[in-house]
């Protein structure tokens, strides 16, 4: 079961309220889809500069595995106030500690509410259901 202290997007990002900001990462499902369980297949991640404003649903970064480039979508609107400096040189952290050290960006949300996103149980159903 995935952590229930955060919410999940259909595009497989997670968001967690942390104080007066929101931290965002990608789920274990997203990582597995990109690299088939071989985290060595992740080769590059491009995260935004601190200070950038993003709208919910807008691309805030990109991640490349050996065979695909995928966009990362902001689940909420706001300002990027911090990026995880570990990610660029240690992409394996996305698989090794998806819910903790694998966070990507911290957003000062325009409206810090993530209730529109799925809870863990609903996300579980989303990724299990035939599309």
């Amino acid at each position, binding site marked *: 079961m995935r952590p229930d202290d955060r919410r999940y997007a259909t595009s497989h990002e997670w968001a967690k309220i942390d104080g007066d900001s929101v931290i965002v990462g990608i789920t274990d499902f997203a990582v597995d889809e990109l690299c088939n369980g071989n985290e060595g297949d992740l080769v590059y991640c491009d995260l935004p500069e601190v200070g950038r404003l993003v709208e919910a649903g807008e691309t805030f970064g990109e991640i490349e595995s050996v*065979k695909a480039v995928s966009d990362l979508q902001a689940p909420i609107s706001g300002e990027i106030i911090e990026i995880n400096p570990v990610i660029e040189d240690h992409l394996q952290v996305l698989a090794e500690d998806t819910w903790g050290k694998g966070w990507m960006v911290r957003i000062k949300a325009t409206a810090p509410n993530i209730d529109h996103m799925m809870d863990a149980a609903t996300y579980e159903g989303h990724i299990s259901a035939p599309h």
Partner: protein
Amino acid sequence: MQDSWRLITTWGTTPEFNMGLDEALLLEGDQPTLRLYTWSPDALSLGWFQKTSEVSGIGSASSTVRRLTGGGAIHHEGELTFSLCCPQTHPLYRGPVGPSYARIHGAVILALRQIGLPARLRGEGSLTSDDPASGMCFHHSTPLDVEWNGRKGVGSAQRRKGGRVLHHGSIKVTSTPLEGNIATFEQATESHTAQSFAPLLLDHMRQHLGLRLVPGVPSPEERERAAELGARYTTDEWVHQR
């Protein structure tokens, strides 16, 4: 039940058109589309994340573009290029990235075998064409790449954006100075050009992947969008963004 796809074939179209139309289909395509195309003039395409300094042959082709898809650089000359664009939920692309390559490459391999090439997925190990220092796609191989006679012969890469997927593939008919020591049609028992091989590839896409291919053309709106998007692909700002 067969799955209906639009088939767009364009021979000798410009790098700007080729890349612009693929992007237009990725962003706004309203139906699954398979494209077959060749390039005129020839072009060197960089992978989305490649730095220009990582590609030893930069500046050696008639034109240079940066693809939306990842991976290494490709010299688009003497090749048949294909692209598939559809929702990520389509059965061909649903699920992990790896198996989606295996499905598409399965059809490509059958077509290559039909002209006498012992094509197969590389699997574990390495190829004699591997030379990652060149920055070229055909000089870097992974288990899911297609090879024959120990050399890579098909380059592939995907972009996944907004719930849609763009899959690029390059099948080498002849080698170029930028892509030496790779697998080409020179070892085939039948002589083929990109154009003469295309019907064989389509047959296997139909049979192996269950696609019902309906010949078509880009809509006026797609052409307009392709021109608008494509114009930036050869600019210094776009090519040298990394």
